[in-house]
């Protein structure tokens, strides 16, 4: 789960990391008020709060010298759309006087199977670009989670960022605290970019990004409560709430599959046979008919979809349950596209009977089904 910058900033502050006083607003009036309150001589920055990168390039980040200019920027930013996401909130933060900009992040590293702290003096820019162009400017240290981050580890990383021991000590404290926030909230990423130093020798976080591991949310209701449903694709929200895993794509063959690997393989096979998958959709291991109904609703709400393909390999998933769900769904609403169903495995025979009784046909072979679904794109149901 992605947190907004304004949420991440609060978590860092709660963790004792120096973050300039800032606030979030939903209206130009609020923006002006906050700008007046938090802005100093340097003015403020107004930043769109959406879950995507490239906000700056899209015009979602603007500097303002005073409250009035902040208000007028907010009028432009609030309501704009960045990569398909509407901007409903903006962060208003003071513009700090900056001497240096560094990069600091904690991630989960699949290679070492540990949390890894990454630091670089090349902060304030896209770290992926730094990694590609000048990887030697990035330092990484894997932390042993059994011991947590040790003082000397934080110090040795901080020495990579600063030379002055006063700045080193501040940075080391921030590194340790960011690691603590990372574990406390159950993050898979916690990033400060830039970690700035000021001309008068303070080190502070000017931006913050936190991604929380979805599997941590059950035991962290306070973090779960930070979820901003309005900032996500409504179909994906509906899918998640129904226990489905759904990702919208740009194609026209709607796919409904059990299992993530098979779902991807199905998408790939659609492409192999000349089609374009409209989505990734995994109904998961259980075979509750209601889930199937919701899945079909989500797929059919996508106006690009021109044929719908079921690909079910029954293991724990019972084919008859899926068949019941399909039948119930088409009784409940108009699918409006051709439907191709492939079912095999557990209770396959019962499933075929249920489908045939409802006037539907079931295929047993995956390739055959995918080919057919691709062919039927554009046909009337």
């Amino acid at each position, binding site marked *: 789960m992605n947190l907004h910058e304004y949420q991440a900033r609060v978590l860092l502050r709660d963790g004792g990391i120096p973050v300039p006083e800032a606030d979030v607003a939903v209206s130009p009036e609020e923006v002006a008020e906050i700008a007046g309150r938090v802005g100093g001589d340097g003015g403020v920055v107004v930043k769109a709060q959406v879950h995507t990168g490239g906000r700056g390039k899209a015009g979602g980040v603007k500097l303002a010298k005073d409250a009035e200019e902040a208000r007028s920027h907010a009028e432009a930013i609030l309501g704009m759309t960045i990569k398909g996401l509407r901007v409903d909130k903006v962060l208003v933060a003071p513009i700090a006087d900056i001497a240096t900009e560094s990069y600091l992040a904690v991630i*989960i590293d*699949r*290679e070492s*199977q*540990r*949390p890894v702290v990454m630091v670089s003096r090349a902060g304030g820019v896209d770290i*992926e670009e730094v990694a590609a162009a000048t990887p030697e400017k990035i330092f990484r240290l894997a932390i*042993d*989670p*059994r011991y947590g981050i040790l003082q000397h580890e934080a110090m040795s990383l901080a020495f990579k960022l600063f030379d002055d021991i006063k700045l080193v000590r501040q940075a080391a404290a921030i590194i340790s605290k960011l690691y603590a926030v990372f*574990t406390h909230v*159950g993050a*898979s990423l916690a990033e400060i970019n830039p970690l700035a130093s000021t001309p008068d020798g303070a080190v502070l976080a000017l931006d913050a990004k936190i991604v929380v*591991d*979805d*599997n*941590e949310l*059950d*035991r962290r209701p306070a973090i779960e409560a930070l979820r901003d449903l309005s900032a996500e694709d409504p179909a994906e929200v509906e899918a998640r709430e129904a226990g489905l*895993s759904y*990702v919208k*794509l740009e194609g026209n063959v709607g796919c409904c*599959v*059990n*299992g*993530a*690997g*098979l*779902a*991807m*393989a199905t*998408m*790939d*096979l*659609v*492409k*192999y046979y000349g089609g374009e*998958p409209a989505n*990734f959709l*995994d109904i998961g*291991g259980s075979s509750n008919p209601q889930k199937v109904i919701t899945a079909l609703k989500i797929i059919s709400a996508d106006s690009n979809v021109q044929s719908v393909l079921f690909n079910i*390999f*029954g*293991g*724990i*998933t019972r084919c008859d349950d899926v068949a019941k769900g399909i039948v119930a769904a088409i009784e409940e609403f108009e699918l409006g596209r051709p439907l191709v169903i492939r079912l*095999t*495995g*557990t209770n396959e025979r019962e499933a075929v009977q249920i489908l045939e009784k409802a006037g539907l046909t079931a295929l047993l072979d*995956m*390739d055959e089904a995918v080919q057919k679904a691709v062919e039927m794109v554009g046909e009337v149901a």
Partner: protein
Amino acid sequence: MSIFIDKNTKLVVQGITGRDGSFHASQMREYGTNVVAGVTPGKGGQRFEDEVPIFNTVGEAIESTGANVAAIYVPAAFAADAVFEAAAAGIMFIVCITEGIPVLEMTRVLPFLKEHGARLLGPNCPGAITPGESKVGIIPGQICKAGNVGVVSRSGTLTYEVVNQLTVNGIGQSTCVGIGGDPLIGTNFIDCLEAFQNDPHTDAIVMIGEIGGTDEQKAAQFVADKVSKPVVGFIAGQTAPPGRRMGHAGAIISGSSGTASEKMQALKEAGVAVMSRPADVVELIKEHS
């Protein structure tokens, strides 16, 4: 004859009285797995299906029954602890079916397993099956057939699809292993490739990968360096967009890294015969072994 499990496997099922645990314990027993014990705290002294003794702790189960493999079906909130418990009690092969263990928990579980010399399969995996001998997990037994092809996969149902293709075409399997789709797992491709390479009854290997991470690339290098047996490979997710998680927590292209094409390229360079479609497995296995 097989890797990890065989007819000497004596299984303890953790969470045997839960919804999933009881269902699959039945299925495994039906398949012929020697389920010697179950564990559910507070139900010690009872029996599962009137036969399998239930214990409060894994330690007691081992002491009474000599269980040597554990299968975990407890809810996500308790699953990491179940792995800790099994390893601490001395189980050397632990299969965790449960999905949803936080990855930070796994960063603690994995070194614990290493310290105890235990192997974990999973979490969030379908388990393993050695056809005709033992099934530990949830892979449907009826789609498998004893034989000489080792199968290792990050996926569940995609594995069934491939195994089913093999079986209906008369190609049997030594062991089928689902390693799971989480970012941090106990047993990776290399572990399985090495085991299959050392297993005298495995003559060819099928490996089924997917987008995300670099395990398949490392496995390709391992194949090039250490595996003399023919390997047939598949990578799911050629059409997956970057930055989006495809169901499995580990199936995500980060930046431009972890794509299907780079994985397929690595496998090809290592001499692996790469399938275009799951159905190709039959022809490629016949061709290369």
